[in-house]
């Protein structure tokens, strides 16, 4: 989060070279505007995420939450009309979605798609090896892959049989979301955006998914949780909460803001903004 710097800290920063500082910047979004079919949805988003942080973005339906995650991931259905997105100190605005993924950006989809005939294992194997190839690495050796799959599926309490099923085909809501987090665990991204991961989950699945995310958290990666309710935030505790309204972040605060929203709804913020 942006906190004002004293003059002293700025001098220290200059001494330590600005590049070193930039590396510590995970995601930096400035004045981001995006539209779909000429309809403006994002109207000037500013957001900074540093390694080790968990951010929650909350907001009522239609406020632009999912659009924000799609735009960060590079979905070409949306047109970025202004502003920029920096990821690990690099402007990623012109990069294809897969190139952003190769850099360590992961999006857990609100509605994961089905790919018939492609098993969970085959899919994740392809994803990992395509990412490795993009970095000039050899494919992951089969035994290493197997070990990783075993480790991560245990972490998320995933049955081995599940891994041979076609990707998301006939999966329950809970299985789909768990599969998303399984993929996240396998790919070990720098930044994970969880788009409404809690929707469609019963309380047990929610606990498993949240535990998984918490175990994967470290000082080097960051998580952005997009949610409508604060339910998930009881398990994945955010450092910062942002309220998105009509395509803008209108209020930011600590985790207590989530509780306040749960209690009072969004109307008071709307009124505050209008004032």
């Amino acid at each position, binding site marked *: 989060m942006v906190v004002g710097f004293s003059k002293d800290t700025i001098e220290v920063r200059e001494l330590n070279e600005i590049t070193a500082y930039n590396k510590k910047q995970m995601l930096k979004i400035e004045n981001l505007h995006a539209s779909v079919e000429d309809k403006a949805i994002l109207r000037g988003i500013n957001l900074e995420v540093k390694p080790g942080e968990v951010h929650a973005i909350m907001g009522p339906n239609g406020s632009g939450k999912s659009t924000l995650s799609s735009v960060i991931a590079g979905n070409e259905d949306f047109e970025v009309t202004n502003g920029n997105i920096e990821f690990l100190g690099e402007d990623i605005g012109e990069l294809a979605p*897969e190139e952003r*993924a190769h850099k360590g950006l992961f999006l857990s*989809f609100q509605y994961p798609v089905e*790919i018939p*005939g492609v098993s969970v294992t085959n899919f994740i194997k392809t994803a990992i090896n395509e990412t490795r190839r*993009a970095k000039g690495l050899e494919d992951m050796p089969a035994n290493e892959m197997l070990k990783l799959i075993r480790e991560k599926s245990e972490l998320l309490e995933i049955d081995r049989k599940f891994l041979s099923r*076609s990707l998301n085909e006939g999966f329950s809501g809970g299985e789909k979301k768990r599969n998303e987090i399984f*993929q996240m665990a396998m790919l070990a991204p720098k930044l994970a955006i969880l788009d409404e991961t809690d929707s469609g989950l019963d309380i047990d699945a929610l606990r498993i998914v949240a535990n998984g995310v918490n175990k994967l958290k470290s000082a080097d990666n960051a998580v952005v949780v997009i949610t409508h309710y604060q339910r998930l935030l009881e398990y994945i505790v955010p450092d910062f909460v942002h309220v998105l309204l009509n395509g803008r972040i209108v209020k930011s605060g600590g985790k207590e803001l989530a509780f306040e929203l749960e209690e009072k709804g969004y109307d008071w913020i709307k009124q505050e903004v209008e004032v």
Partner: protein
Amino acid sequence: MFLRNNFNSKMAYTEEELKKELETKEYEYGFYTDIESDTLPVGLNEDIVRAISKKKNEPQWMTDWRLEAFSQWKQMEEPEWANVTYKKPDFQAISYYSAPVSKPKYQSLDEVDPELLDTFKRLGISLDEQKKLAGVAVDVVMDSVSVATSFKKTLGEKGIIFCSISEAIQKHPELVRKYLGTVVPQKDNFYAALNSAVFSDGSFCYIPKGVRCPMELSTYFRINQAGTGQFERTLVIADESSYVSYLEGCTAPTRDENQLHAAVVELIAMDDAEIKYSTVQNWFPGDKEGKGGVFNFVTKRGLCENRAKISWTQVETGSAVTWKYPSCVLKGDNSVGEFYSIAVTNNYQQADTGTKMIHLGKNTKSTIISKGISAGRSQNSYRGLVQVHGRAENARNFSQCDSLLMGNQCGAHTFPYIETKNKTAQIEHEATTSKIGEDQIFYCNQRGIDTEKAIALIVNGFSKEVLNKLPMEFAVEAQKLLEISLEGSVG
């Protein structure tokens, strides 16, 4: 329409009709044109048919058989029921015989079309094989030649005959004469009749009683005898309790100046025998504007005696126009027919393909799994017939036809025909049509998989049930081929 045109021949499956087909008719010799040149003049008439037969040094019965086919062909009309449109070939403008090219076309790989070489490379074809396939002179002893030699030795020890059909006519006339035309009679259809009259060459295979062929038989091993021309004829006979797996074609792109290909394949599986016939076809489909490309009008049919089994597996990616229905006549009781197909059409390709399962015997079973993939402006049709005759107690069929569309300008069509004259028959038909969605592509992209790879993944998933039926090495190549065939088909 489909039935009328193609199923006149079903009468020929009765014993009586089969015998009739086999009767040799004494024809007067008549005169023939003695032509010494390596290529016959364009046009088709009795003299040309005689000349082809003479060129190949065939016995009289073979010449007569061809002439009979020719006289039937003259009375037939080109079929129009298929869901394809094309300019009909002028049959009098084709030369029906060219001596196999023995001289290399090129002196080095540098002279070969780089696009073709690039495709070879991506299919993982070795340099020597690339030369062979492109028609480059080869000055080293190639692996495959020695492979072919030891291969022939192993087969010989088991009593298996595997040679060109021309060689079989010379060396095993009793077998050829007994079985040729018994499954696909000369007058079966327009193109089968044409093929019967003028077939240039093809393959012959005989597996003796109780022998399990120890390796996949592949025309690839016969490539030194390639250049079989546009009218290929294949006859595979599996004697009682024998087994053979036969691979036809090659994943390597085949460029051919001949626009019209009309092949006939006949399979005979005697009691308790099993034939697995796999095809990968990748003939020139025409360019992106739909110019050029091969017309592929093929008749493939197998006959199953008691407890016999025939499986057709095909991966069709080439040709401008495809017209092909590998079929099974389940004549014997408890016999089994299977058809697994992937047909890919891109750009302006048109395919009308499927199968016919004719249940004649009791407790006969058939399975049809058809996967059509259309991209570009292509049209892809599945056409299939399941026919259960009165005597076929407890016949079973399961059909599944899935279509996958890419983009908004292609078409997928399904024409299933079911006819049953027995109340105990159980027939199931399932069909689905789906589209590769932008959401699927984006999902893959987000996981680090680029669009080309994503399409390949989705298509392979869609085709998995059929790819699984191919012999292992063939399946790997076919998978790559699907990838290449669909390159650039989505924005």
